[in-house]
């Protein structure tokens, strides 16, 4: 009996040791997490997001637009499998299903009511690069304005359809970036962490 117990403890130690060792190597090669990524609507602040997310990727599964990805190593090892959005490929349409389905506090549950979204969602802020925007260079475009879910609230048009972002109201869904017909994009959404930096 003592023999099997000793054997068990030996194996236990070997398993734990091997796991901790590989975990050490893992955390050594896990580079710094990059914050320049758009999270799904209602996400926690970046510093606590990746520890709250259990990587069940149900938000990605429920997203009707396939905007949320949880694919792989793009964001470093510590943030692997956490959800993010590349608005140029597919932007968020603010249906708020991801928060509904999230089992943790990583994504807040927000109803799909327009005013509530405006008050609570802050994925990022859109910024207009006036040096390359069509409307600021003598051609009238305004495509971003027509894509915005909150026209005249979050995004206004000046004379000659020049877009102006109302920073306090912009939810950062990225529909304007996705719709922008200029290449490279003249309007882009930057994640909210950059705002405070």
């Amino acid at each position: 009996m003592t023999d099997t117990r000793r054997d068990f403890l030996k194996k236990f130690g070997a398993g734990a040791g091997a796991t901790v060792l590989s975990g050490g190597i893992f955390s050594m090669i896990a580079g710094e997490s990059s914050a320049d990524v758009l999270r799904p609507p209602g996400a926690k602040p970046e510093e606590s997001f990746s520890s709250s997310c259990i990587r069940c990727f149900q938000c990605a599964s429920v997203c009707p637009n396939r905007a949320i990805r949880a694919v792989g190593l793009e964001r470093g090892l510590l943030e692997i499998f956490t959800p993010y959005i590349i608005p140029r490929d597919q932007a968020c349409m603010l249906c708020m299903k991801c928060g509904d389905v999230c089992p943790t506090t990583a994504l807040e549950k927000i109803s799909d009511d327009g005013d509530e979204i405006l008050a609570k969602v802050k994925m990022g802020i859109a910024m207009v690069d006036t040096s390359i925007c069509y409307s600021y260079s003598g051609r009238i475009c305004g495509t971003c304005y027509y894509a915005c879910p909150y026209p005249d609230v979050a995004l206004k048009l000046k004379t000659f359809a020049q877009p102006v972002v109302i920073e306090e109201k912009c939810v950062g869904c990225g529909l304007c970036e996705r719709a922008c017909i200029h290449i490279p994009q003249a309007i882009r959404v930057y994640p909210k962490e950059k705002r405070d930096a």
Partner: protein
Amino acid sequence: MLRKTRRSVQFLSLLFIVLVPFFGYLNSLRSVYGISGFHVALMNGGWLEGNLYAFYERTFGLLDDPVPIIDSLKGTFWSITILGFNISDPLAGIGYLLTTKEVYFPILLSILIPVLLTVILGRVFCGWVCPINTIAEITDKLRKWVRKKAFTSMPDINLGTGTKYGVLAGSLAIVLFTGAQVFAYFLPYVTLGRELHNLFYFHVATYGAYYLLFLLLFELLVSRRGWCRYLCPSGALLSLMSSRSWLKLVKDQSSVCADICQDCNEVCQMGLNVRDGKSGAECSQCGDCVVECPQSNLKLKFSFSKTAVTALAFAFILFFAPIASAHHMSGLPHYGYSENYPQIPVTEQEQNVGGYTVSLTSIFFQGVKRELSSIPFDSQFYVHIYKKTVGSDTSKQGFKDPFNKDKSGVKTDAEIIEKSYAGVITLVIMNEDGAELAKYTLDAPSEEAVYRFRHYFKRSGTYGLAVNFSDGTSSKGQARFTVPIAVTEGVPTGIYIALLLLAVLGVALYLRKKSKAEFVPSG
């Protein structure tokens, strides 16, 4: 009967893990394209997807609104959402508790069902539900066949049952100290779900497929049922919880086993000593030994006490209470076709050269699925060169930075001025060895400070691009980029074909053995 029930449950669980991402994907096709199977085939792939979508339209499409019905079941065995109620893996809940160090009631509630199931019925998740166990059983059948046909002896490394408890403890320590949910990184049933999700949604396979293949080969060639027996931390936790389970494997002590009979020990999935009645908490309740025992000495017996039933009743009251606060199920907003049509994907790169930032945007005109095409003949490159300086110039070309606020929240005068380069630039396109393929020169920006180049490539591959510019006064700049053109993202979908073939072979072997057994006259 026991085995048939178990096989049906296993089949259902496999069906669940495959069909949830499958129908989720068709659902998203509906909201993105929303027209017909023909249009889906035209725009998003081909014949197969078009027909699958047409099938979906003919079945679920007849319902008034199929989307909430399909959305009501989501997730994998790591975390499932059924009708708005979450059921999570115990390790997910524990991991969340350890990383955030806060008590979040819903997730603790969501692990209640698996915990109760394990406490009452033992390791049934392992034996009856886990898809990896099902795959491993098929692999086991294959292993037997390979040993019979090819090798007389195969290595069967015993890592020891203690190892998995060590892996559990070590992983918990890593979760606590690094704050990463490492269990979700390497538990194979989570990996399988994620891989299937990626396969259906984005048509890519990631390294998780290699990991699964590695495990399968490990179990096939190195160690029989190696992962489940010796390494799985989830199995370790479930074993710990099921030590006093009500459902237990009991041996009839009145009947004496034949001396040479080792059937139960040989068939045992977990490699336990069933013959001597020492199965213990490691038993995965699969009941194979019960079926195989020639003397019917073994039984899965259910026994419970009054206290336990009372505790269970209380637990159920606790569990059903929050459902009353009905869950909000939001419907899909109605989006038009034009709103959801995906943009042409672009690749963007940036470099800093001589004070300037050179940004390169590349487009390959092969439609939405350009990664999968073999000849990306038409490509466009957009080069934008600019210099960012902080100043107080408020001219029209100024670049307002909304993030640049001082502490009182009022904007300062200092702004980031973006000045675009507008001189002559040259674009040299090289192949991988550095040999020049083409050279383009533009005297002025094509439009709005952006230079546009167009090049026809003959074949896919990795190309080098050099952007030369000089602003006359001080600096000459050359920015070098590497552009992968139409290189498939290593899509190793062949792995799935291999897995499928293995599965078919395993099932065929299983069925063949059964039919043979029927032909052998008994007695």
